């Protein structure tokens, strides 16, 4: 970026001709800490991407200072980065870092391992702990469970004790305190005589990172000199541990924080999300609250329906505006009452068939459940597939498809089989130059040779693939891609693959999933597209659907058994219901089936969550269809 190419702040316009509402524009240009309340469809990612563009293109985030964006999920972090890259170009985007809380904390403690005070310095080759490791460490440290208590309740309690407070643990002369400290030691360093390897959980990692920053003013200062702007995504889900880390890193520093969230979508309380986070942040960081009033996603009548939930979600009444692309009467909602799940499967699959006949793409329809996709939608998936309407449980694919190695394999297939796929070509050439450490501007001769090499490889690869007759042969072909790039080269470019068998496991998964797709369609291009989910209906839980949107959403099983803990956590379940409802752009369907085999019992009820039914029925928007007497 040449110095004179920067745009003057007052002349800056939202990139790519987008229009931002006033509050959003204010947030984009703000020089103070802000809390942006962004309801569903408000364009949260776009807002953050535009803000990054503003800061970088006008040099308000003064070169070479950087922007740090922290999200919860890997794909959210990646999506945001890709959006920024698209909006302001690769060069400026180099100063934009988008990562998850986990990656942020882990990177700090790995790199600055030696700056962690000795007593809490983890073994360098630790693994990531799961709850059973933690339980095991507690028992090795002397913890004895009381008989009769449920295991997962004990585990939760132990884990809470482990990470409740900031480090170091205050020493007390009590048995519990002793056990706690010994457990930390065991987990941090392992114990060879007990045959226990060092393992730490991400929550422990965040605690360690906070301790590390607190004890090392120079690291803290250099971090504050590096990041002059920080974005916090999905802020309503921030846990106490994460908030402690943020405060230690950035409180009272010359760092401008933009937090974006929506208390109506707070469905992570069970995972320690702080209920008071908005209030705390506003007072700790003296942050200004900005409310977005646009809903770019949903049709007007669906937005009306969402608003009916506001009062029970403690949201003040807001005039939500919808996108001008809709007509006022757009948007529809249905409540289907079935006598059993068999009837449900028939009717819903017919509904979907009709939608597809009207031209709705499969990937634009979503089947949502509260939890247990196979219990609630298993039959429906089978039925749809038998009708030629592909659908699948997306849980396994969501993270898989975001893996760097998987993207390489998929793009190689596109290059070999799709006609002139420019995106895939650019992706592969960029990745190859990155891996081989070529500079695409100065080493043109090398790049040229690389292109020739790639073309030769693709010809070979196609030849090899055309004779593939089994999953194992497919795996061999994929290993051919790996060899072409170089195993060591891939691993050193993407360090996440250096440890353990993760990299090889992904190859195995790739071979298995792709072979399955290929067996169905007998055509590689189609198989890869199907693997990417371009031609299927995703089935997922509400929690996995956060941040996504679909033309039509079918919520299967609006029943007490699905909301089994409603009495104890009404707020969180209301938020979940709100999230489900607000995924839909044009149409949303809810189903209730009197008979459905679930883990509790077959007979389903809806008295516990009757407030949802009252809301839907009194809305004058939802059309209720009762099939149970038919």
């Amino acid at each position: 970026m040449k110095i004179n190419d920067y745009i003057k702040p007052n002349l800056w316009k939202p990139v790519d001709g987008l229009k931002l509402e006033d509050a959003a524009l204010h947030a984009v240009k703000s020089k103070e800490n802000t809390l942006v309340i962004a309801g569903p469809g408000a364009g949260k990612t776009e807002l953050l991407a535009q803000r990054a563009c503003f800061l970088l293109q006008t040099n308000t985030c003064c070169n070479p200072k950087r922007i740090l964006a922290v999200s919860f999920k890997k794909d959210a972090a990646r999506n945001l980065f890709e959006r920024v890259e698209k909006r302001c170009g690769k060069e400026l985007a180099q100063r934009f870092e988008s990562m998850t809380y986990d990656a942020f904390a882990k990177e700090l403690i790995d790199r600055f391992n030696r700056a962690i005070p000795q007593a809490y310095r983890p073994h360098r080759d630790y693994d990531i702990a799961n709850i059973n490791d933690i339980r095991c460490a507690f028992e090795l440290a002397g913890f004895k469970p009381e008989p009769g208590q449920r295991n997962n309740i004990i585990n939760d309690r132990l884990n809470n004790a482990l990470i409740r407070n900031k480090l170091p643990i205050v020493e007390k002369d009590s048995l519990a305190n002793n056990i706690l400290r010994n457990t930390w030691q065991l987990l941090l360093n392992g114990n060879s005589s007990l045959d226990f390897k060092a393992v730490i959980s991400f929550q422990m990692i965040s605690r360690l990172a906070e301790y590390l920053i607190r004890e090392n003013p120079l690291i803290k200062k250099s971090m504050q000199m590096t990041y002059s702007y920080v974005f916090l995504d999905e802020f309503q889900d921030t846990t106490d541990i994460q908030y402690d880390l943020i405060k230690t890193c950035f409180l009272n520093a010359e760092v401008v924080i933009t937090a974006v969230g929506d208390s109506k979508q707070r469905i992570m309380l069970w995972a320690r999300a702080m209920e008071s986070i908005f209030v705390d942040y506003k007072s700790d960081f003296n942050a200004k609250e900005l409310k977005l009033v646009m809903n770019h996603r949903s049709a007007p009548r669906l937005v009306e329906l969402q608003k009916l939930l506001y009062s029970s979600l403690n949201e003040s009444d807001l005039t939500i505006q919808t996108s001008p692309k809709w007509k006022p009467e757009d948007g529809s909602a249905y409540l289907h009452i079935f006598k059993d799940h068999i009837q449900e499967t028939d009717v819903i699959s017919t509904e979907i068939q009709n939608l597809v006949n009207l031209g709705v793409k499969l990937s634009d329809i979503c089947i949502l459940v509260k939890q247990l996709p196979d219990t609630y939608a298993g039959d429906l998936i089978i039925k749809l597939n038998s009708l030629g309407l592909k659908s699948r449980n997306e849980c396994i694919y969501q993270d898989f498809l975001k893996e760097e190695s998987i993207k390489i394999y998929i793009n190689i297939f596109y290059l070999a089989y799709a006609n002139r796929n420019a995106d895939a070509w650019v992706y592969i050439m960029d990745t190859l130059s990155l891996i081989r450490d070529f500079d695409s501007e100065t080493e043109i001769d090398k790049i040229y040779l690389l292109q020739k090499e790639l073309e030769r490889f693709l010809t070979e690869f196609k030849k090899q693939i055309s004779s593939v007759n089994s999953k194992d042969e497919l795996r061999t072909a994929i290993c051919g891609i790996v060899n072409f790039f170089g195993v060591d080269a891939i691993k050193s470019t993407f360090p996440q693959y250096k440890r353990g068998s993760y990299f090889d496991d992904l190859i195995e998964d790739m071979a298995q999933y792709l072979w399955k797709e290929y067996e169905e369609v007998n055509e590689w291009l189609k198989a890869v597209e199907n693997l990417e989910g371009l031609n299927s209906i995703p089935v997922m839980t509400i929690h996995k659907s956060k941040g996504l949107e679909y033309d039509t959403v079918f919520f299967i099983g609006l029943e007490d058994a699905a909301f089994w803990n409603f009495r104890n956590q009404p707020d969180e379940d209301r938020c979940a219901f709100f999230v489900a409802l607000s995924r839909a752009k044009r149409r949303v369907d809810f189903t209730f089936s009197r008979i459905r085999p679930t883990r509790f019992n077959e007979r389903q009820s809806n008295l516990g969550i009757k407030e949802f039914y009252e809301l839907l029925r009194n809305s004058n928007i939802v059309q209720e269809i009762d099939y149970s007497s038919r």
Partner: protein
Amino acid sequence: MRLSKLKVRNFRCFGPEETTIEFDKLTAFIGCNSSGKTAFIHALLKIFGETAFDHSLQRSDFHVPKGKAPEEISENNLHIEAVFTFPELEKGDNSYSIPIFFKSFVVDDVGLPLYLRIRLEASWKKSSSPDGSIESKVYYITASEEEDIRDEDKKPASRHDLSHIKTIYVPAIRNPAEQLRNVSGTILSRVLNGINWSDDTKESLKDKIREVDAVFDQETGVDMLKKAVKNQWKNYHSDYRYTDATMKFNSTDLDTILKKVEVKFSPTETTRDYNVEELGDGLRSLFYLSLVNSLLDIENSIMKESEEKKEGDRLSFNITPPVLTIVAVEEPENHISPQLNDIKATLKSEGGDGSTYSEKQKALMVWYNYFFLNRGKPSTHRLALSLINMDEINKSLPKPLKRIVNAIEDALKDDPYSAVGEINEDK
């Protein structure tokens, strides 16, 4: 940001035992022929040189152990590692380098200063081609120097990041004419291409060129020649394309004009100006150093300008200087007399400490003799007499030089920050 250490292993004359040399703001290598002084400079260039040519490794860069014939070796590995420290962090100064490299900082213990490790690793293997195949990669090492380096501690460093650190190498044989050509990689092109040409300038240049052309046209001879060329061409060529053959007597645009930029020296013994090739050896060498200094000066001004820039101000240059420039000067013994002054000149004319953006650091190399430091504050420099085998030097040194070297040595023993400048005056 400062270069604090350079470590080499299996690079040229340095064997499999890793050799470490520490750097200060100003550092001198004194040593016998072939003791590896130039090799150190080249080690730096392999990572921080300006052009792809600087970075490229040859088979001859890989160490061949004493008593072994090159043919006996079928594969070999080398590494070069540079360690940087960030004194500005402790001082609380603003820093341009920290944001760029923060993601790769490491630390040795609780509360200690942070540092950066950049390491080139290369391997050579026998192959069908006579030079064998060489693979090399530059990494950030994200482990403390006190720990082993695991695979996951190596993070690839992009060329873009590395371009923030530059080494300017002033070789013993200095041909400024090469640096004065406006081709990629030379000092002149670096500056010229960075100038922020205004549209007005470009427009008025075009006008002036047209005026000059008109002057030419007034000459009837020129006019006749032009017409003849034009008309004859028509007899030979009938396609619509390229029909018009017009003779131009001067450059038509900025780029062509820039290609012809040169430095002229006057007055001279004769009536015409001299160009740089016409200067004597000594002067040429001096001019080279002054050219390097011009570049450093300009980089400082660029930063000052953009720091003080108010909204709407036009900047004179369009480039971002490196955050650290390492100047490596090679002083061969046969340069003695004029160079005494030019070393001083180089050191003196450094743009001061006015700008924190672009730190300059100097590695000074003297071939088998002595050198002098005489800068404003001698206490800020330490003389690093690394790699010297004093006995060997003493054996072969002429007497007066022996005295000086001993004096330097003694002074350093008592007080590494002593004023070396005084010794200089003694001579």
